[in-house]
């Protein structure tokens, strides 16, 4: 039971990766990343057999930061800075979907060389796919807000991997990681806000004044 619900949740994570990759509306992307954050919150409840306070606190903290606070903050930034709603990809959607598929293949190829003890679990390949698709979004999208979403996805991938260690890495560290991600996205959001005011557009493509001449 636990095993199959874990596989189901991990499958949902991969689906949300691709959903963000293929969505053209900014608000929908943010909704998907919030959904992914909520799944991440459920994961420790499934991976750990017993519900200790540590596990429950980790689950609640994850949901609050990744599914509620950060997406809410991004929505606020979009509204306040009056950002246009399209994602504006530099690479067409079909191309980024292909990149995503390649990432999926690469992740499973890497996972097949893992030591025997870790094989069979979906955790590592799913974590890798999420990291790689996050990077694809960071690189192929023009708007700064969607780049922040890509960064959040990348962090989610790392976080999924970290959940396999929940019992061994102390609580303080997990709290530190969550806090750092939160502050990081917060500062990014503020910069995004200023970029929009200075450039009248949130597109990072306009950020080209600094170059080697």
């Amino acid at each position, binding site marked *: 039971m636990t095993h199959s619900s874990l596989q189901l949740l991990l499958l949902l994570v991969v689906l949300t990766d691709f959903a963000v990759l293929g969505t053209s509306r900014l608000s929908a992307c943010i909704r998907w990343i919030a959904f992914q954050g909520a799944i991440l919150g459920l994961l420790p409840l499934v991976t750990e057999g017993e519900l200790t306070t540590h596990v429950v606190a980790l689950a609640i903290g994850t949901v609050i930061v990744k599914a509620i606070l950060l997406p809410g903050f991004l929505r606020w930034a979009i509204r306040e800075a009056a950002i246009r709603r399209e994602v504006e990809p530099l690479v067409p959607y079909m191309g980024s979907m292909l990149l995503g598929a390649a990432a999926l293949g690469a992740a499973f190829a890497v996972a097949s*060389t*893992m*030591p025997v003890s*870790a094989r069979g679990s979906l955790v590592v390949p799913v974590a890798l796919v999420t*990291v790689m698709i996050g*990077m694809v979004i*960071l690189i192929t999208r023009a708007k*700064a807000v969607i*780049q922040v979403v890509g*960064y959040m996805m*990348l*962090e989610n991938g*790392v976080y999924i*991997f*970290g959940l*396999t*260690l929940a019992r*061994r*890495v*102390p609580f303080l*560290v997990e709290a*530190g*990681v969550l806090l*750092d991600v939160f*502050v*990081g996205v917060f*500062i*990014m959001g503020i*910069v995004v806000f*200023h*970029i929009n005011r*200075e*450039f009248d557009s949130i597109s*990072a493509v306009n*950020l*080209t*004044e*600094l170059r*080697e*001449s």
Partner: protein
Amino acid sequence: MLIELLIVVVPLAAGALAYVVQGARARSALLLTIATLHTGAVGLLWVHQADRAPGGWLMADELGLVVLSTVSVLFLVVAYYAVGYLRDQTPRGGRAFVSCLLAFLSATSLVALSQHLALLWVGMESTTLAIAPLIYARHDRRSLEAVWKYLVLSSVGIALALLAVFLLATAQPVDGGSRALLLPDLIGGASRLDPWWLRASFVFALAGFGTKMGLAPLHTWKPDTYGEAPSLVGGLMAGALTSCAFLGLARFTQVAMAAGLQDFVRPLLIASGLFSLLVAAAFIIGQADVKRLLAYSSVEHMGLLVLGLGIGGAGAYGSVLHLINNGLVKGMLFLAVGNLVLAAGTSVVADMHGMLRVRPVSAWLLVIGLFAVTGSPPFGLFISEFSIITGAVREHHPWVAAATVLMLTIIFVGIAGMIIDIVYGEPAGAADESSSGAERPSFVVGPVILASIVLLLGLYIPAPLRAAIGRAAASLGGMRP
């Protein structure tokens, strides 16, 4: 343990206090007091070196202590400079400026003292977050672009470093024997680490901390950021932040070497170091902006640090010594250049000729800095670069040694050409002649002190420091030449 904890916590608390305090003068006094106390506390760590109890999350081992001392001295000088700077420059949000500086001191101290690798990561991420608002001090398009590039690239780097930390934890055996991610346990139980996970961990650590250090090809944030940030912030980044990032990479190297992965780790480090030297040499030639030049010079020195680490033997000793020298000389150069840029109103070399007449002391400092940063005798960098090159020859890498010497020569020619252009010639009209020759002491005392230390380190290294560097190098698989 108590001193270590105070070294991290007090600056952070003071940073919060600085945000509340009204009045620029009180904030400056706070900054200077904390910086002085910090250096004093680090001095205490040197005195009490013998009775260190290993095992805690925070402990100053030799390598950490060397990094911490470099950071502390540099920060003290920069804090003194900042007090004068804040008197007539008002970077956006003067309150936040001092707060962020103090938070940065706390974060770098945490990195230097962490014996727990996840805690080290938290410190490293905090340095990024503390320094980002400082880059954006000018509040215009260019600094906005710089801070965005910096945030995105170093956030990706830091995420990869976190993955490296997790992979390392996975490499540890599950049974109770060793505590997760504590450095002494990792090194002590290195033979029981799983090599597959350990290799994966090292690759991500190299990419992640390499991005934070600005190793080529992940250095692209550096010229933009250093070019746009206020000079004193640039000095802190090039001197302190990169040293901390190097320490992160060095910690992972320590573990990998202890586990017997030398043949995997060393070629990666050497290749990465040489490539950084190559990129630095290519972009230093014909560079038009002096701050961007300093950024590429920083890429060069990060390359040398990693190269020495990869060579091992005398190279590792040179690497640790170079970390101190590079930290101090970068601080000095950025402050001196900052003075000239303030006078000329630009950092484009074509518009800043004849600085010897406009700002004689800073211009002379720049000339001294030229010889120091390119590793000419009798400065400290000569000794450390010489150790790295000797190390390469002794460890049977003659081609690495030859390539390094060639790049260093090219870089010397590039930097010398630009600095001569800046110092000599007729001053441009823009520079105000009225203030010629008059330089405020607080703007030149700091760089003069740093230059003196770098000169002293080239002539004589005190015995305790020499011993500490030797032990730090030994922990990285090196030895005293």
